[in-house]
């Protein structure tokens, strides 16, 4: 929750009017975690992301976005973990440590990828319709690949 509060506060430093949106997202997350309702988590994350997007305004490429992105992932993971821990099963010692280690490794890997993406975004390749079309096709293709992978593994 502390991480979510920080994520809500950071964009509000640029645009204080967005603090309400961030606060609402943190509240939704708080309700979801305390009541054990997992469906609240993506809405809260989306809210925090929207706050960040609105705070960007017309500024140039934000170099801190990888940190923010990874923090959102970590927030979501911790929130789902909290919801899972509200179950009745008692954990044995050691599970939490392994999970934290796994989360840190995942976050580090995500940070590397995000940093690479930001670096690539800074490269000026020249605009044009072809580049826009290629970018759109790549985005749609990536989404389609994800959906196919999800559907295939769901049916397995």
């Amino acid at each position: 929750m502390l991480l979510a509060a920080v994520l809500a506060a950071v964009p509000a430093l640029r645009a204080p009017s967005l603090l309400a949106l961030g606060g609402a997202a943190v509240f939704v997350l708080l309700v979801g975690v305390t009541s054990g309702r997992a469906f609240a988590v993506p809405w809260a994350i989306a809210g925090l992301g929207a706050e960040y997007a609105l705070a960007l305004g017309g500024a140039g490429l934000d170099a801190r976005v990888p940190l923010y992105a990874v923090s959102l992932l970590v927030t979501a993971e911790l929130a789902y973990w909290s919801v899972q821990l509200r179950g009745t099963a008692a954990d044995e010692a050691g599970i939490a440590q392994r999970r934290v280690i796994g989360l840190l490794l995942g976050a580090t890997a995500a940070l590397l990828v995000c940093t690479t993406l930001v670096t690539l975004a800074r490269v000026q390749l020249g605009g044009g319709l072809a580049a826009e079309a290629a970018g759109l096709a790549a985005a749609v293709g990536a989404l389609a690949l994800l959906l196919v992978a999800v559907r295939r593994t769901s049916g397995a």
Partner: protein
Amino acid sequence: MTRSPTPKLGAYAGLTALGMLAALALGRPELAVLASPFAIAIAVGVPWAGDPRIRVWVHPERDRMVEESEQEVEVEVEAQEGALRVEVLLVLPRGLEAVGDNPVARRLQARTSREITFRVLARRWGAYRLGEVAVRTTDRFGFFSYEARLDESRPLKVYPHPEWLRTMLRPLETQPFGGNQVARAKGDGIEFADLRPFVPGDRLRRINWRASARRGDLWVNESHPERNTDVVIFLDTFAEARRGDLGTLDMAVRASASLADQYLSHKDRVGLVSFGGVLNWLTPATGIAQLYRIVDSLLDTEIILSYAWKDIEIVPRRTLPPQALIVALTPLLDERAVGALLDLRTRGFDLAVVEVSPEPFTPVPEDSLGEFAHRLWRLRREALRDRFRTLGVPITEWREGVGLQAPIEEVRAFRRYARVRR
């Protein structure tokens, strides 16, 4: 194992799609970067997700227990693929309870079995099946959950908690076989009965020399022989009164098991008639095997609703031997059981009734009409008891929280002063 996607998978996919589309729409690459960790998680996690193929073996400590006792049940779990957190639930039927954590979560390494120990408390007597295990786990990224109910169950018998008994009801008549009961008739035995003049054929060791010296003639001791008896436990299973985990049937079953144990330990023959929606009977026999037969039969006892009129005629004749003592355990709630008992009495059977009182299980209504109805019901029950007493049948009320010895003593006292009307 049944595999199903978790809400997390849909949430991450949705966040990814939202971020990507927003990035395209707004022309802000930051939003694509924001969505990329979720996309990476799905891209890496989904192909890696695989069925952990969990297997389970259940090893109970014992297959027989006594009510209110505990035993350890070891559950051996093995996964073909490692799982960070596997929830294991030992499914317990009503009447059995877990002492301690159930379910528990354990980490499983690939192809390495782990033993989880559960403590199980037998709360109520009965025949159960123990060993069904429900397991649930997720893949490493938590995108898919895998659930299975693995049935490794085996029978578990929970015997009723014995009631403490010091003395037993003595039957009016004994049987011709040797036992521990002192017969009313005279014959070879240990208990002194009377003196009589010596007749040719009497053994010298039976001569009472002191009496002979005083009377100037030979007198011999007579004694009561030790015989066994036939006892039939009559269990009324037409209806019961119940509150929570305790009911009149539970009390009656415990009493039946204790009575059977006590009589059989005195070398008597004991039979069982479970008279209710379903008729069960065991012909009288003796020995430890008969005790197990009776207790096993009691474990299957349950109230089965039936509207069919049944009388004592449907009980096989050999189940009720002549001169047998019939100890009835009944809540006196069903006309058919009451009729059968009165019928037994009119046929000359030596009958004693322990009324397992349903009154503690029947709260008094708070409204005046309900209270009046309750009083009327109690008066009718009292009239019913008087009807038994008029026929010379000892009847005593046994309430929850009172030892079985108390009603048995009451019946003994009644029989001490009352005699069977032939």
